[in-house]
């Protein structure tokens, strides 16, 4: 076995980075699942490995865990959006009943390189101090003993005011190709659209939570996270200890949606409190604090200007995004959609990252792309109307055959097939008849939107497969499964290659200790990263199994196969249970590791799709009901249709909430959100769920990886809101300049 260094690229949330990977030659030459491969497990619906324990309430999430002697933390948070701490009685808190440890703003956390507690206050909810006590009630009661007094200061939660003040959290960015200004001036037709989109809160059902147990032999952190390994690296840096001294465990994660990427605040203070108290410490948000500080999609105002020829070819694109970033900078792919969705030679996309007195923006399911698509695809419909061209046809005319940013070809792209299939499933040809039927006084309409995103994944991603003498196999990976179905897909891939019954395969993830590096559950990168590694490990174990069988039955390995749990010779003379050769192993196991191979560098790996929404609007009440969403996506091979469709449904629902009802509201007087509860922050309910029709088109993307599968976590969330807004405009002839489409906005828009 030899190992070599390979330079490759890896895309994460719209940004490609160069990475160096070690390639073990045993991972090469294992072939691929060709487009027409006769797969017997992959591509068929497999039920969730964690379904029974979750449905029966036996899955133990981080918030459910308790360790002997565990202390409960409570955080003292800023009541003001601007100002400073005038008085804080740390000693009072230390002597409050049950309190075992207190951290104030001046106490170093770990190496002291990261600040987690503050005296200069920049947003409501910002942590000032934290304590750990014997019971949750003692911890909450002890907060009063801090006797906090603040000196309120200036703040702004007004997006446009801060823009006029040029108050940026990082430098504005302009990305351009060609001269869009001149091209706009020369265009036959131009349209402009302004749109305000709200801050949407991830609202994971399990709040941010960490349970830290710092012992002399190392630190264990149970963490509700989408990225165990990022968390481990961040904690090691912040605490000044080696990564190998830290174990991060994330067995069950109650949702993340981007808000749980990275270590976050909770494990940092939990670890430091545990170190000081010598006891395990639990830090978990209540719902109010989760909605206040858990993160959000950036509140934005966008301006889109499009120019086109009479035939409908885009000649110019200008797309400006003013984004409320909060108090900390963060790279968000705001410009990916205008730069790459359609073919156009003159594009300018600008981002204005405004500083407001709010917690910094974090990732939220296709950050930037959901919002940009919502504005950009509405402008495309305005252009279609101005040109009197069918909206889907306008999108076909402007199809980009190559990556408009890099000039590279796409590894695969079946967007045109998505349009055709979606139109067929939605009855697009009848949309004007649908609109014309107003017998019941309601307004109906249909709208579409396109989707582009990454999701190819890449190295490093590692897996091991063990097959024991009892015939049971275990797959170990470094992934966490925040409800996405990742571990179920891992099991599916392993079953395909091992050829043994899927029930005999256990999957393990959610723990850094095996030290098998896996991807963060973000950027839709998990499937494309880990599945090839699992496949390779499983192939190697199957090869060992067949080698043993060949020796025992005195046949050539090439004449043997294992399938459906049977070991067979090609001539079918031999047909035995696969366990027949394993029984001799005793306590030994057949074991192998697999690792993700490098990405190709001469093509862009992306995912595509089209959704069509059908809505009905009540002009007297301002209600918008989504009757149906057709979602057709091109994400390569589908490993498990059951969990794949579940991901699409979830993405659609989350963006249906963005379109219709989800919106953080800020009080101008205090700068605090007014709706930090689940009764005021309106998520869609099951009654709001439309008929959802899902299909996948496009062949396996074998240029992306040997399984041909790409990511699906984010793509379905991207076009939904735009499609709904376009359907609303089709139904009413009006376009709301702000989302979500609440009864108030709709009635004002239709007035």
């Amino acid at each position, binding site marked *: 076995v030899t190992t070599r260094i390979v330079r490759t690229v890896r895309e994460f949330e719209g940004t490609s980075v160069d990475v160096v990977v070690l390639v073990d030659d045993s991972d090469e030459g294992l072939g691929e699942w060709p487009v027409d491969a006769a797969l017997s497990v992959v591509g068929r619906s497999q039920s969730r490995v964690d379904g029974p324990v979750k449905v029966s309430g036996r899955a133990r999430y981080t918030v459910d865990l308790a360790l002997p002697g565990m202390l409960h933390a409570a955080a003292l948070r800023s009541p003001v959006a601007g100002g400073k701490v005038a008085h804080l009685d740390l000693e009072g808190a230390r002597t409050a009943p049950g309190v075992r440890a207190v951290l104030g703003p001046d106490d170093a956390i770990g190496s002291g390189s990261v600040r987690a507690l503050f005296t200069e206050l920049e947003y409501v909810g910002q942590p000032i101090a934290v304590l750990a006590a014997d019971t949750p009630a003692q911890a909450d009661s002890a907060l009063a003993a801090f006797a906090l007094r603040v000196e309120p200061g200036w703040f702004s939660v007004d997006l446009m005011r801060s823009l006029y003040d040029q108050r940026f959290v990082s430098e504005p960015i302009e990305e351009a190709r060609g001269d869009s200004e001149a091209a706009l001036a020369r265009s036959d037709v131009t349209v402009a659209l302004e749109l305000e989109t709200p801050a949407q809160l991830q609202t994971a059902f399990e709040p941010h939570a960490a349970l830290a147990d710092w012992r002399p032999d190392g630190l264990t952190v149970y963490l509700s996270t989408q990225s165990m390994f990022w968390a481990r690296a961040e904690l090691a840096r912040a605490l000044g200890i080696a990564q190998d001294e830290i174990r991060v465990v994330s067995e069950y994660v109650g949702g993340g949606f981007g808000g749980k990427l990275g270590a976050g605040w909770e494990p940092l203070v939990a670890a430091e409190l545990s170190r000081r108290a010598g006891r395990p410490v639990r830090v978990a948000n209540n719902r109010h604090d989760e909605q206040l500080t858990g993160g959000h999609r950036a509140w934005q105002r966008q301006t889109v200007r499009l120019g086109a020829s009479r035939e409908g070819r885009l000649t110019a694109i200008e797309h400006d995004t003013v984004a409320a970033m909060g108090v900390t900078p963060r790279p968000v792919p705001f410009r990916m959609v205008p730069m790459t969705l359609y073919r156009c030679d003159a594009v300018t996309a600008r981002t204005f990252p405004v500083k407001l007195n709010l917690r910094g923006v974090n990732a939220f399911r296709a950050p930037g792309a959901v919002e940009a698509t919502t504005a950009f695809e509405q402008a495309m419909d305005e252009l279609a109307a101005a040109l009197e061209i069918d909206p889907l046809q306008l999108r076909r005319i402007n199809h980009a055959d190559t990556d408009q940013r890099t000039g590279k070809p796409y590894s695969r792209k079946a967007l045109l097939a998505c349009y055709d299939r979606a139109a067929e499933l939605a009855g697009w040809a009848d949309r004007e008849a649908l609109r014309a039927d107003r017998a019941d006084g309601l307004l109906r309409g249909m709208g579409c939107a396109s989707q582009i995103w990454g999701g190819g994944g890449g190295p490093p991603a590692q897996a091991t497969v063990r097959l024991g003498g009892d015939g049971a196999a275990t797959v170990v990976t470094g992934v966490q499964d925040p409800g996405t179905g990742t571990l179920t897909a891992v099991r599916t891939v392993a079953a395909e290659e091992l050829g043994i019954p899927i029930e005999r395969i256990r999957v393990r993830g959610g723990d850094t200790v095996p030290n098998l590096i896996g991807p963060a559950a973000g950027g839709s990168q998990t499937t494309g990263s880990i599945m090839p590694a699992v496949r390779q490990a499983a192939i190697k174990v199957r090869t060992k199994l067949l080698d043993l069988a060949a020796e025992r039955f005195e046949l050539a390995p090439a004449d043997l196969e294992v399938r459906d749990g049977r070991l067979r010779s090609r001539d079918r003379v031999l047909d035995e249970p696969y366990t027949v050769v394993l029984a001799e192993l005793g306590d030994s196991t057949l074991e192998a590791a697999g690792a993700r191979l490098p990405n190709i560098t001469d093509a862009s790996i992306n995912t595509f799709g089209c959704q069509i929404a059908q809505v009905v609007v009540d002009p007297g009440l301002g209600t918008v009901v989504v009757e149906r969403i057709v979602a057709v996506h091109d994400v390569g091979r589908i490993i498990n249709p059951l969990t794949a469709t579940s991901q699409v449904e979830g993405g659609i629902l989350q963006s249906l909430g963005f379109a219709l009802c989800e919106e953080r*509201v800020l009080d*101008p007087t205090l700068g605090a959100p007014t709706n930090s509860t689940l009764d005021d922050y*309106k998520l869609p309910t099951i009654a709001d769920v439309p008929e959802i029709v899902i299909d996948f088109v496009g062949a396996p993307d074998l240029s992306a990886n040997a399984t041909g599968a790409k990511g699906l976590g984010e793509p379905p969330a991207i076009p939904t809101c735009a499609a709904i807004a376009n359907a609303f405009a089709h139904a009413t002839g009006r376009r709301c300049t702000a989302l979500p489409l609440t009864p108030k906005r709709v009635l004002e828009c239709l007035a």
Partner: protein
Amino acid sequence: MEYARAGSLDEALLLLERAGASALAGGTDLAGQIDRGLAAPELIVDISTVGLEEITPTDDGGLMIGATVTLARLASATELASYAAIATAAGLTASPLLRNQGTIGGNLCQRTRCWYYRGLEWNCWLAGGDTCYAQIGEHSKHNLQPGDCISAHPSDMAPALAACAATVIARSTAGERELAVLDLYRRPSQDNRSLLALRPGELLTHVRLPAPPEASTYRRLGERRAFSFPLVSVAAARHGDRITVAATGVANVPVALDPTDPLRDLPGNPQTGWKRRALHTLVQRATDDVG
């Protein structure tokens, strides 16, 4: 905080005479009030087993509904088949879980959902503070009448019961009185911020329905298709050639509306004005339903 399960109505009324006593039925609003520091009862008097869970016919062809009858039961009660507005309102309130727990008495006595009133960050006028933060802040879901407080009443049941000419019976150790449903409410004043006209120690024990109207209906606008307090809701009932209309979501308290001029005295403001259009539509549709 003490808890006492009353064994009889008389025992409950005695316990409720104590200062700091609060009645507990379904608890779906009381628990939220305690959680948010809006209520800090010293004594919780559980009235779930004092015999207020019956629906009984009255001699005049109406019904007597005990205060602890759940909304789920009201939504499906055969006795309410002739009171469509009431059954519909009960079935549209909150969610199935809350309807199984919440009671008709609790629904009528619940407090406003104004987010400044409920929010931890503000000490608003209605809660005893000096400022109505809603009026200088985000109040697009608030009411259409100017005043010291612009919170909107959230009860689905109140307008439905009012349109059907229901009364409520309030009892204390001092005796019993009967009020029209809308008289259960008062606009808050500088001296008394309560929205309820109940006196200290008084418990709402029953809702009395007269004989059913010829027709009744309930229509609402929510923020989503289920599990939402009404933004605006309207009930209408036809009694002979007279149509009565009541609404919630448009004033501090549930109000009766003149069906020929429903927007009178409800001017709204730039943030809430949109509710006038919704109210107009709901009144039109509701009166059409019973017309």
